[in-house]
Protein backbone atom coordinates (compact mmCIF):
# COMPACT_ATOMS: atom_id res chain seq x y z
CA UNK A 1 0.00 0.00 0.00
CA UNK A 2 2.88 2.31 0.80
CA UNK A 3 3.61 4.97 -1.77
CA UNK A 4 7.23 5.70 -0.96
CA UNK A 5 8.00 9.42 -1.31
CA UNK A 6 11.38 9.39 0.43
CA UNK A 7 14.04 11.26 -1.47
CA UNK A 8 17.03 13.58 -1.00
CA UNK A 9 16.73 17.32 -0.51
CA UNK A 10 18.64 17.88 -3.76
CA UNK A 11 16.23 15.66 -5.67
CA UNK A 12 13.13 17.10 -3.99
CA UNK A 13 14.03 20.71 -4.81
CA UNK A 14 15.27 19.86 -8.32
CA UNK A 15 12.10 17.92 -9.15
CA UNK A 16 9.40 20.05 -7.57
CA UNK A 17 10.56 23.68 -7.64
CA UNK A 18 10.80 25.53 -10.96
CA UNK A 19 12.18 29.00 -11.63
CA UNK A 20 9.45 31.56 -11.07
CA UNK A 21 7.40 29.38 -8.73
CA UNK A 22 5.45 30.81 -5.82
CA UNK A 23 6.89 29.02 -2.77
CA UNK A 24 5.02 28.94 0.56
CA UNK A 25 7.66 28.92 3.28
CA UNK A 26 6.91 27.76 6.82
CA UNK A 27 8.45 30.35 9.13
CA UNK A 28 7.69 32.40 12.22
CA UNK A 29 10.49 34.92 12.74
CA UNK A 30 13.16 32.76 14.42
CA UNK A 31 11.05 29.60 14.41
CA UNK A 32 10.60 26.46 12.36
CA UNK A 33 11.84 27.44 8.92
CA UNK A 34 12.71 24.52 6.57
CA UNK A 35 16.28 25.87 6.28
CA UNK A 36 17.80 22.81 4.60
CA UNK A 37 15.29 23.26 1.78
CA UNK A 38 15.98 27.00 1.69
CA UNK A 39 19.73 26.47 1.33
CA UNK A 40 19.08 23.96 -1.44
CA UNK A 41 16.97 26.53 -3.32
CA UNK A 42 20.00 28.81 -3.16
CA UNK A 43 22.55 26.14 -4.10
CA UNK A 44 20.45 25.20 -7.13
CA UNK A 45 20.34 28.89 -8.01
CA UNK A 46 16.58 29.03 -8.48
CA UNK A 47 15.47 32.35 -9.93
CA UNK A 48 12.41 34.55 -9.84
CA UNK A 49 10.73 32.85 -6.90
CA UNK A 50 7.79 34.42 -5.13
CA UNK A 51 7.92 33.64 -1.40
CA UNK A 52 4.84 33.39 0.81
CA UNK A 53 5.45 33.82 4.53
CA UNK A 54 3.43 34.68 7.58
CA UNK A 55 6.48 36.10 9.35
CA UNK A 56 9.71 35.53 7.45
CA UNK A 57 13.13 35.53 9.09
CA UNK A 58 16.69 34.65 8.13
CA UNK A 59 15.38 32.42 5.33
CA UNK A 60 13.92 35.42 3.53
CA UNK A 61 17.10 37.41 4.18
CA UNK A 62 19.22 34.69 2.55
CA UNK A 63 16.85 34.19 -0.40
CA UNK A 64 16.91 37.95 -1.00
CA UNK A 65 20.71 38.17 -0.72
CA UNK A 66 21.13 35.24 -3.14
CA UNK A 67 18.80 36.85 -5.65
CA UNK A 68 16.59 33.74 -5.63
CA UNK A 69 13.36 35.61 -4.88
CA UNK A 70 11.97 38.69 -6.61
CA UNK A 71 8.68 39.02 -4.74
CA UNK A 72 7.28 38.41 -1.29
CA UNK A 73 3.69 37.82 -0.25
CA UNK A 74 3.38 38.04 3.50
CA UNK A 75 2.49 39.76 6.74
CA UNK A 76 5.97 40.54 8.10
CA UNK A 77 9.70 39.89 7.79
CA UNK A 78 11.92 40.17 10.87
CA UNK A 79 14.40 38.22 12.98
CA UNK A 80 12.71 39.56 16.12
CA UNK A 81 15.40 40.19 18.77
CA UNK A 82 18.09 39.89 16.11
CA UNK A 83 16.69 42.84 14.19
CA UNK A 84 15.29 43.49 10.74
CA UNK A 85 16.46 41.39 7.79
CA UNK A 86 19.00 43.81 6.28
CA UNK A 87 19.48 41.99 2.96
CA UNK A 88 15.74 41.73 2.40
CA UNK A 89 15.43 45.44 3.27
CA UNK A 90 18.13 46.41 0.78
CA UNK A 91 16.54 44.24 -1.92
CA UNK A 92 13.12 45.81 -1.39
CA UNK A 93 14.45 49.35 -1.11
CA UNK A 94 16.47 48.74 -4.30
CA UNK A 95 13.39 47.51 -6.14
CA UNK A 96 14.74 43.99 -6.59
CA UNK A 97 12.06 42.39 -4.40
CA UNK A 98 8.46 43.48 -4.77
CA UNK A 99 6.28 43.13 -1.65
CA UNK A 100 2.62 42.22 -1.47
CA UNK A 101 1.97 43.07 2.16
CA UNK A 102 -1.06 41.44 3.76
CA UNK A 103 -2.39 41.35 7.29
CA UNK A 104 -2.56 37.91 8.88
CA UNK A 105 -6.29 37.50 8.31
CA UNK A 106 -5.94 38.63 4.69
CA UNK A 107 -3.08 36.20 4.03
CA UNK A 108 -5.03 33.42 5.74
CA UNK A 109 -8.11 34.29 3.69
CA UNK A 110 -6.16 34.23 0.41
CA UNK A 111 -4.65 30.84 1.24
CA UNK A 112 -7.87 29.48 2.73
CA UNK A 113 -9.69 30.31 -0.49
CA UNK A 114 -6.89 28.62 -2.42
CA UNK A 115 -7.17 25.48 -0.32
CA UNK A 116 -10.96 25.33 -0.63
CA UNK A 117 -11.16 26.19 -4.31
CA UNK A 118 -13.17 29.33 -3.56
CA UNK A 119 -12.54 32.47 -5.61
CA UNK A 120 -12.09 34.48 -2.41
CA UNK A 121 -12.68 34.58 1.33
CA UNK A 122 -13.63 37.72 3.26
CA UNK A 123 -12.04 39.47 6.21
CA UNK A 124 -13.01 42.55 8.22
CA UNK A 125 -9.36 43.30 8.89
CA UNK A 126 -7.46 46.02 6.98
CA UNK A 127 -10.52 48.24 6.49
CA UNK A 128 -9.33 51.84 6.63
CA UNK A 129 -5.69 51.03 5.86
CA UNK A 130 -3.67 51.88 2.73
CA UNK A 131 -3.01 48.17 2.15
CA UNK A 132 -6.32 47.63 0.32
CA UNK A 133 -5.84 50.39 -2.25
CA UNK A 134 -2.25 49.23 -2.66
CA UNK A 135 -3.41 45.78 -3.78
CA UNK A 136 -6.47 46.02 -6.06
CA UNK A 137 -5.66 42.75 -7.84
CA UNK A 138 -6.13 40.75 -4.66
CA UNK A 139 -8.13 42.84 -2.19
CA UNK A 140 -11.52 44.40 -2.85
CA UNK A 141 -14.05 45.99 -0.53
CA UNK A 142 -17.41 44.33 -1.31
CA UNK A 143 -20.93 44.77 0.00
CA UNK A 144 -22.67 42.18 2.17
CA UNK A 145 -25.63 40.78 0.17
CA UNK A 146 -27.58 40.56 3.43
CA UNK A 147 -27.19 44.26 4.15
CA UNK A 148 -24.51 43.95 6.81
CA UNK A 149 -21.14 45.69 6.85
CA UNK A 150 -18.81 45.59 3.86
CA UNK A 151 -15.98 43.05 3.85
CA UNK A 152 -12.61 42.82 2.18
CA UNK A 153 -12.69 40.03 -0.40
CA UNK A 154 -9.26 38.35 -0.46
CA UNK A 155 -8.53 36.62 -3.75
CA UNK A 156 -7.55 32.93 -3.70
CA UNK A 157 -3.80 32.26 -3.59
CA UNK A 158 -2.50 28.84 -4.66
CA UNK A 159 1.28 28.55 -4.15
CA UNK A 160 3.11 26.19 -6.51
CA UNK A 161 5.01 24.52 -3.70
CA UNK A 162 4.92 24.51 0.10
CA UNK A 163 8.08 23.80 2.10
CA UNK A 164 7.37 22.31 5.51
CA UNK A 165 9.58 21.06 8.33
CA UNK A 166 8.19 18.55 10.82
CA UNK A 167 9.20 16.31 13.70
CA UNK A 168 8.10 13.05 12.13
CA UNK A 169 6.91 11.88 8.77
CA UNK A 170 6.34 8.44 7.29
CA UNK A 171 7.26 7.30 3.77
CA UNK A 172 3.82 8.20 2.47
CA UNK A 173 4.10 11.73 3.81
CA UNK A 174 1.85 11.59 6.84
CA UNK A 175 3.18 14.40 9.02
CA UNK A 176 3.19 14.45 12.78
CA UNK A 177 4.30 17.00 15.36
CA UNK A 178 5.41 16.33 18.88
CA UNK A 179 3.30 18.11 21.48
CA UNK A 180 4.18 21.75 21.02
CA UNK A 181 2.35 24.67 19.55
CA UNK A 182 1.64 24.10 15.88
CA UNK A 183 3.37 26.57 13.62
CA UNK A 184 0.73 28.87 12.16
CA UNK A 185 1.65 27.93 8.59
CA UNK A 186 0.90 24.23 9.04
CA UNK A 187 -2.75 25.09 9.39
CA UNK A 188 -3.01 26.26 5.79
CA UNK A 189 0.21 26.60 3.71
CA UNK A 190 0.55 22.96 2.63
CA UNK A 191 -3.19 22.66 2.09
CA UNK A 192 -3.32 25.55 -0.36
CA UNK A 193 -0.22 24.61 -2.36
CA UNK A 194 -0.11 22.44 -5.50
CA UNK A 195 2.89 20.50 -4.23
CA UNK A 196 4.29 19.85 -0.76
CA UNK A 197 7.88 19.02 0.21
CA UNK A 198 8.25 17.83 3.80
CA UNK A 199 11.60 17.79 5.57
CA UNK A 200 11.57 16.15 8.97
CA UNK A 201 13.82 15.55 11.93
CA UNK A 202 13.02 11.88 11.53
CA UNK A 203 11.37 9.52 9.07
CA UNK A 204 9.41 6.87 10.96
CA UNK A 205 7.18 3.92 10.10
CA UNK A 206 3.45 4.52 9.89
CA UNK A 207 3.05 2.30 12.93
CA UNK A 208 4.70 4.98 15.05
CA UNK A 209 2.19 7.53 13.79
CA UNK A 210 -0.72 5.15 14.47
CA UNK A 211 0.09 5.36 18.18
CA UNK A 212 -1.11 8.98 18.26
CA UNK A 213 -3.24 9.58 15.16
CA UNK A 214 -4.69 12.73 16.73
CA UNK A 215 -1.22 14.29 16.43
CA UNK A 216 -0.97 13.75 12.68
CA UNK A 217 -1.51 17.18 11.15
CA UNK A 218 -1.07 16.54 7.43
CA UNK A 219 -2.30 13.53 5.44
CA UNK A 220 0.21 11.83 3.16
CA UNK A 221 -1.96 12.20 0.09
CA UNK A 222 -1.13 15.92 -0.14
CA UNK A 223 2.63 15.36 0.14
CA UNK A 224 4.95 14.91 -2.87
CA UNK A 225 8.37 14.45 -1.31
CA UNK A 226 9.70 13.38 2.07
CA UNK A 227 13.26 14.08 3.25
CA UNK A 228 14.94 13.27 6.55
CA UNK A 229 16.99 16.24 7.75
CA UNK A 230 17.95 16.28 11.44
CA UNK A 231 18.34 19.88 12.62
CA UNK A 232 16.71 20.83 9.35
CA UNK A 233 15.39 24.05 10.85
CA UNK A 234 18.76 25.31 12.15
CA UNK A 235 19.49 28.15 12.82
CA UNK A 236 15.79 28.69 13.55
CA UNK A 237 14.19 26.87 16.46
CA UNK A 238 12.24 23.67 16.29
CA UNK A 239 10.54 23.28 19.65
CA UNK A 240 10.57 21.10 21.64
CA UNK A 241 13.68 19.62 19.94
CA UNK A 242 15.96 22.65 19.87
CA UNK A 243 15.81 26.41 20.18
CA UNK A 244 16.98 29.04 17.71
CA UNK A 245 20.76 29.51 17.47
CA UNK A 246 21.37 32.96 18.96
CA UNK A 247 25.09 33.06 18.19
CA UNK A 248 24.46 32.10 14.59
CA UNK A 249 21.69 34.68 14.17
CA UNK A 250 23.86 37.37 15.78
CA UNK A 251 26.79 36.50 13.54
CA UNK A 252 24.61 36.78 10.43
CA UNK A 253 22.93 39.97 11.68
CA UNK A 254 26.40 41.52 12.07
CA UNK A 255 27.80 40.18 8.80
CA UNK A 256 24.71 41.15 6.82
CA UNK A 257 25.46 44.84 7.34
CA UNK A 258 28.62 44.61 5.25
CA UNK A 259 28.73 43.24 1.67
CA UNK A 260 32.07 41.44 1.99
CA UNK A 261 31.30 40.01 5.42
CA UNK A 262 27.88 38.87 4.27
CA UNK A 263 29.38 37.13 1.23
CA UNK A 264 32.00 35.46 3.40
CA UNK A 265 29.37 34.19 5.84
CA UNK A 266 27.28 33.03 2.93
CA UNK A 267 30.15 31.16 1.29
CA UNK A 268 30.99 29.42 4.54
CA UNK A 269 27.47 28.45 5.63
CA UNK A 270 25.26 28.37 2.56
CA UNK A 271 27.19 27.93 -0.68
CA UNK A 272 30.22 26.09 0.71
CA UNK A 273 28.74 23.02 2.38
CA UNK A 274 27.85 20.41 -0.25
CA UNK A 275 25.63 18.50 2.16
CA UNK A 276 23.57 19.03 5.28
CA UNK A 277 26.24 17.18 7.26
CA UNK A 278 28.87 19.64 6.05
CA UNK A 279 26.57 22.51 6.89
CA UNK A 280 26.16 21.25 10.44
CA UNK A 281 29.89 20.85 10.97
CA UNK A 282 30.48 24.35 9.59
CA UNK A 283 28.05 25.46 12.29
CA UNK A 284 30.02 23.47 14.90
CA UNK A 285 27.49 20.63 14.66
CA UNK A 286 27.86 18.61 17.86
CA UNK A 287 28.68 21.57 20.08
CA UNK A 288 25.86 23.61 18.58
CA UNK A 289 23.37 20.80 18.99
CA UNK A 290 24.03 20.18 22.66
CA UNK A 291 24.10 23.91 23.28
CA UNK A 292 20.68 24.39 21.69
CA UNK A 293 19.14 21.34 23.29
CA UNK A 294 20.67 22.24 26.62
CA UNK A 295 19.45 25.79 26.59
CA UNK A 296 16.01 24.70 25.53
CA UNK A 297 16.06 22.35 28.46
CA UNK A 298 14.20 19.53 26.79
Amino acid at each position, binding site marked *: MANNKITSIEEAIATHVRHGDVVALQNMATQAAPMAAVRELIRQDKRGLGVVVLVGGIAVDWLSFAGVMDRLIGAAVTM*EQFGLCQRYRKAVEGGRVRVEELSETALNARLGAGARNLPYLPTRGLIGT*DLIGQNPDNLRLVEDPFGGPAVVACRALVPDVALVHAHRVDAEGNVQYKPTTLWPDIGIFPKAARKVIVTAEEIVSSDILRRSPDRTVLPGFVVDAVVEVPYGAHPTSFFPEYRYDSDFHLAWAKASRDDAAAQEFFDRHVLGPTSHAEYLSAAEGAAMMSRLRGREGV
Partner: protein
Amino acid sequence: MSGEAYQEARDYTVDELMISVLSNFFEDGDQACNGMASFLPVSAFMLARLTHAPGLVWLASATGLEPRPAKVPASTLESQLWSDSVMYMEQYGDFWNYAMNGRWLQKFCVGAAQLDMYGNANNSVIGADFHTPKVRLPGTAGLGDMGSLGKLLYYWNPNHSPRSLVEKVDFVSAAGYLGGGDEREDLGLAGGPQAVVTNLAVLDFEPESKRMRLRSAHRGVTMDDIRAATGFELVIPTDVPTTPAPTEEQVRLIREVIDPDGMRKREFGR
Protein backbone atom coordinates in the same frame (compact mmCIF):
# COMPACT_ATOMS: atom_id res chain seq x y z
CA MET B 1 1.51 41.49 51.51
CA SER B 2 2.17 44.36 53.91
CA GLY B 3 0.54 47.78 53.57
CA GLU B 4 3.89 49.14 52.48
CA ALA B 5 3.60 47.06 49.37
CA TYR B 6 1.03 49.58 48.17
CA GLN B 7 3.29 52.51 48.80
CA GLU B 8 4.55 54.27 45.72
CA ALA B 9 8.08 53.21 44.96
CA ARG B 10 10.71 55.92 44.98
CA ASP B 11 13.28 53.75 43.31
CA TYR B 12 11.99 52.72 39.89
CA THR B 13 13.10 52.98 36.26
CA VAL B 14 11.07 54.06 33.25
CA ASP B 15 10.68 50.49 31.97
CA GLU B 16 9.15 49.53 35.31
CA LEU B 17 6.87 52.56 35.18
CA MET B 18 5.68 51.68 31.66
CA ILE B 19 5.03 48.07 32.69
CA SER B 20 3.01 49.29 35.67
CA VAL B 21 0.95 51.63 33.48
CA LEU B 22 0.31 48.95 30.85
CA SER B 23 -0.65 46.38 33.47
CA ASN B 24 -3.35 48.68 34.84
CA PHE B 25 -5.21 48.57 31.51
CA PHE B 26 -5.90 44.84 32.01
CA GLU B 27 -8.49 43.44 34.41
CA ASP B 28 -10.03 40.17 35.54
CA GLY B 29 -12.16 38.79 32.75
CA ASP B 30 -9.98 40.20 29.98
CA GLN B 31 -8.00 37.94 27.69
CA ALA B 32 -4.58 39.22 26.69
CA CYS B 33 -2.18 37.92 24.07
CA ASN B 34 1.29 39.00 23.02
CA GLY B 35 3.25 38.96 19.79
CA MET B 36 7.01 38.95 19.26
CA ALA B 37 9.49 41.46 20.76
CA SER B 38 6.92 42.38 23.39
CA PHE B 39 8.88 42.40 26.64
CA LEU B 40 6.95 45.27 28.22
CA PRO B 41 3.46 43.87 27.46
CA VAL B 42 4.44 40.35 28.57
CA SER B 43 5.87 41.79 31.81
CA ALA B 44 2.68 43.81 32.24
CA PHE B 45 0.44 40.74 31.80
CA MET B 46 2.52 38.74 34.25
CA LEU B 47 2.42 41.63 36.69
CA ALA B 48 -1.35 42.06 36.41
CA ARG B 49 -1.86 38.33 37.01
CA LEU B 50 0.33 38.52 40.13
CA THR B 51 -1.44 41.56 41.54
CA HIS B 52 -4.78 43.18 40.70
CA ALA B 53 -5.97 40.80 37.93
CA PRO B 54 -5.37 37.16 38.87
CA GLY B 55 -8.23 36.27 36.54
CA LEU B 56 -6.65 37.91 33.48
CA VAL B 57 -6.46 35.15 30.88
CA TRP B 58 -3.17 35.14 29.00
CA LEU B 59 -2.63 33.52 25.62
CA ALA B 60 1.16 33.57 25.32
CA SER B 61 2.43 34.27 21.81
CA ALA B 62 -1.21 33.89 20.75
CA THR B 63 -0.93 30.13 21.24
CA GLY B 64 -0.10 29.02 24.82
CA LEU B 65 -3.10 29.42 27.13
CA GLU B 66 -2.52 30.22 30.81
CA PRO B 67 1.20 29.37 30.72
CA ARG B 68 3.53 29.35 33.72
CA PRO B 69 6.85 30.66 32.43
CA ALA B 70 9.62 30.84 35.01
CA LYS B 71 10.47 34.37 33.82
CA VAL B 72 10.52 36.53 30.71
CA PRO B 73 12.75 34.68 28.19
CA ALA B 74 14.99 36.19 25.51
CA SER B 75 12.16 36.10 22.97
CA THR B 76 8.44 36.61 23.51
CA LEU B 77 7.79 34.11 20.75
CA GLU B 78 9.53 31.05 22.12
CA SER B 79 8.48 27.91 23.94
CA GLN B 80 9.84 28.94 27.33
CA LEU B 81 7.14 31.61 27.38
CA TRP B 82 4.29 29.14 26.81
CA SER B 83 5.67 26.41 29.05
CA ASP B 84 3.12 24.49 31.11
CA SER B 85 0.16 25.85 29.14
CA VAL B 86 -3.31 24.41 29.57
CA MET B 87 -3.90 24.59 25.80
CA TYR B 88 -1.82 24.98 22.65
CA MET B 89 -4.09 26.94 20.37
CA GLU B 90 -3.71 26.39 16.64
CA GLN B 91 -3.36 29.67 14.79
CA TYR B 92 -4.91 29.58 11.36
CA GLY B 93 -8.04 27.64 12.16
CA ASP B 94 -8.61 28.42 15.79
CA PHE B 95 -6.95 31.56 17.17
CA TRP B 96 -8.70 33.81 14.67
CA ASN B 97 -12.10 32.41 15.63
CA TYR B 98 -11.59 34.05 19.00
CA ALA B 99 -9.62 37.09 17.86
CA MET B 100 -12.15 38.08 15.18
CA ASN B 101 -15.21 37.19 17.23
CA GLY B 102 -15.52 40.44 19.17
CA ARG B 103 -16.37 38.90 22.55
CA TRP B 104 -12.86 37.87 23.46
CA LEU B 105 -9.30 39.20 23.18
CA GLN B 106 -10.60 42.76 22.99
CA LYS B 107 -7.46 44.53 24.30
CA PHE B 108 -4.10 44.47 22.55
CA CYS B 109 -0.74 46.01 23.37
CA VAL B 110 0.79 47.01 20.07
CA GLY B 111 3.84 48.82 18.75
CA ALA B 112 4.56 50.62 15.51
CA ALA B 113 7.50 52.38 13.86
CA GLN B 114 5.31 55.44 13.23
CA LEU B 115 2.17 56.60 15.01
CA ASP B 116 0.39 59.79 13.99
CA MET B 117 -1.70 62.42 15.74
CA TYR B 118 -4.88 60.43 15.06
CA GLY B 119 -3.45 57.09 16.15
CA ASN B 120 -2.91 55.69 12.68
CA ALA B 121 0.05 53.30 12.65
CA ASN B 122 2.76 52.53 10.10
CA ASN B 123 4.87 49.38 10.15
CA SER B 124 5.17 49.09 6.38
CA VAL B 125 7.35 51.67 4.67
CA ILE B 126 9.08 55.00 5.26
CA GLY B 127 9.07 57.14 2.12
CA ALA B 128 6.69 58.08 -0.64
CA ASP B 129 6.80 54.99 -2.89
CA PHE B 130 5.56 51.71 -1.41
CA HIS B 131 7.59 49.67 -3.89
CA THR B 132 10.91 51.51 -3.58
CA PRO B 133 10.70 52.84 -0.04
CA LYS B 134 13.37 54.72 1.82
CA VAL B 135 13.04 52.16 4.60
CA ARG B 136 11.27 48.81 4.38
CA LEU B 137 9.74 48.13 7.79
CA PRO B 138 8.83 44.62 9.02
CA GLY B 139 5.20 44.74 7.89
CA THR B 140 1.77 45.00 9.41
CA ALA B 141 1.45 41.37 10.59
CA GLY B 142 -1.63 41.21 12.83
CA LEU B 143 -1.68 44.94 13.54
CA GLY B 144 -3.48 45.71 10.27
CA ASP B 145 -6.24 43.39 11.48
CA MET B 146 -6.48 44.56 15.07
CA GLY B 147 -6.79 48.16 13.93
CA SER B 148 -10.02 47.33 12.08
CA LEU B 149 -11.56 44.54 14.19
CA GLY B 150 -12.95 46.71 16.98
CA LYS B 151 -10.10 46.07 19.39
CA LEU B 152 -8.99 48.46 22.11
CA LEU B 153 -5.36 49.21 21.23
CA TYR B 154 -2.74 50.23 23.75
CA TYR B 155 0.40 51.40 22.00
CA TRP B 156 3.72 51.30 23.77
CA ASN B 157 6.73 53.22 22.55
CA PRO B 158 10.02 53.04 24.46
CA ASN B 159 11.60 55.68 22.21
CA HIS B 160 9.32 58.73 22.15
CA SER B 161 10.71 60.87 19.31
CA PRO B 162 9.64 63.02 16.34
CA ARG B 163 10.52 59.99 14.16
CA SER B 164 8.11 57.64 15.91
CA LEU B 165 5.34 60.13 16.73
CA VAL B 166 4.62 61.94 13.47
CA GLU B 167 1.96 64.33 12.24
CA LYS B 168 0.94 61.98 9.45
CA VAL B 169 2.17 58.44 8.85
CA ASP B 170 3.82 57.78 5.50
CA PHE B 171 1.56 54.76 5.09
CA VAL B 172 -1.45 53.52 7.07
CA SER B 173 -0.71 49.89 8.02
CA ALA B 174 -3.27 49.92 10.82
CA ALA B 175 -6.35 52.09 11.18
CA GLY B 176 -6.49 54.55 14.05
CA TYR B 177 -8.97 57.41 13.90
CA LEU B 178 -7.98 58.06 10.28
CA GLY B 179 -8.57 61.78 9.64
CA GLY B 180 -10.02 62.24 13.13
CA GLY B 181 -13.51 63.14 14.31
CA ASP B 182 -16.07 60.51 13.26
CA GLU B 183 -14.10 59.18 10.30
CA ARG B 184 -13.38 55.84 11.94
CA GLU B 185 -16.94 55.43 13.19
CA ASP B 186 -18.34 56.32 9.77
CA LEU B 187 -16.38 53.42 8.30
CA GLY B 188 -18.18 51.08 10.70
CA LEU B 189 -15.10 50.45 12.82
CA ALA B 190 -15.53 50.11 16.59
CA GLY B 191 -12.78 50.31 19.20
CA GLY B 192 -9.50 51.96 18.25
CA PRO B 193 -6.39 53.30 19.98
CA GLN B 194 -7.00 54.02 23.68
CA ALA B 195 -3.60 55.09 24.92
CA VAL B 196 0.05 55.48 24.00
CA VAL B 197 2.54 54.69 26.74
CA THR B 198 6.00 56.08 25.99
CA ASN B 199 9.26 56.52 27.88
CA LEU B 200 8.24 60.15 28.53
CA ALA B 201 4.48 60.19 29.04
CA VAL B 202 1.09 58.57 28.79
CA LEU B 203 -1.04 59.85 25.92
CA ASP B 204 -4.66 59.24 24.97
CA PHE B 205 -7.11 60.66 22.41
CA GLU B 206 -9.37 63.69 22.78
CA PRO B 207 -12.94 62.31 22.51
CA GLU B 208 -14.27 64.76 19.88
CA SER B 209 -11.36 65.50 17.57
CA LYS B 210 -9.66 62.13 18.27
CA ARG B 211 -6.37 64.00 18.41
CA MET B 212 -3.62 62.61 20.58
CA ARG B 213 -3.62 64.19 24.02
CA LEU B 214 -1.20 64.28 26.90
CA ARG B 215 -2.69 62.42 29.84
CA SER B 216 0.27 62.37 32.23
CA ALA B 217 3.98 63.09 32.19
CA HIS B 218 6.49 60.73 33.76
CA ARG B 219 8.40 61.86 36.82
CA GLY B 220 10.99 64.48 35.92
CA VAL B 221 9.81 64.94 32.35
CA THR B 222 8.85 68.52 31.38
CA MET B 223 6.23 69.75 28.90
CA ASP B 224 9.11 71.05 26.78
CA ASP B 225 10.76 67.62 26.75
CA ILE B 226 7.51 66.11 25.49
CA ARG B 227 6.82 68.85 22.91
CA ALA B 228 10.37 68.55 21.59
CA ALA B 229 10.08 64.77 21.29
CA THR B 230 6.71 64.80 19.51
CA GLY B 231 6.41 65.39 15.76
CA PHE B 232 3.10 67.21 16.00
CA GLU B 233 1.14 69.45 18.31
CA LEU B 234 -0.33 67.41 21.16
CA VAL B 235 -3.55 68.41 22.87
CA ILE B 236 -2.27 69.51 26.29
CA PRO B 237 -4.80 70.07 29.11
CA THR B 238 -4.31 72.96 31.51
CA ASP B 239 -2.96 70.79 34.26
CA VAL B 240 -1.15 67.57 33.52
CA PRO B 241 -0.58 65.11 36.37
CA THR B 242 2.56 63.09 36.92
CA THR B 243 2.21 59.47 35.87
CA PRO B 244 1.45 57.46 39.04
CA ALA B 245 4.56 55.62 40.18
CA PRO B 246 4.53 51.82 40.40
CA THR B 247 4.11 50.40 43.90
CA GLU B 248 7.06 48.98 45.75
CA GLU B 249 5.51 45.54 45.36
CA GLN B 250 5.16 45.98 41.59
CA VAL B 251 8.80 46.97 41.27
CA ARG B 252 9.90 44.05 43.42
CA LEU B 253 7.87 41.57 41.35
CA ILE B 254 9.22 42.94 38.07
CA ARG B 255 12.83 42.83 39.22
CA GLU B 256 12.84 39.62 41.24
CA VAL B 257 10.08 37.41 39.82
CA ILE B 258 8.95 38.45 36.35
CA ASP B 259 12.06 39.65 34.56
CA PRO B 260 15.19 39.04 36.65
CA ASP B 261 17.31 38.98 33.47
CA GLY B 262 16.16 42.48 32.53
CA MET B 263 14.96 41.55 29.04
CA ARG B 264 12.62 44.56 29.26
CA LYS B 265 15.62 46.88 29.02
CA ARG B 266 16.34 45.67 25.49
CA GLU B 267 13.48 47.69 24.09
CA PHE B 268 15.04 51.03 24.96
CA GLY B 269 17.38 53.36 23.13
CA ARG B 270 17.40 51.49 19.83
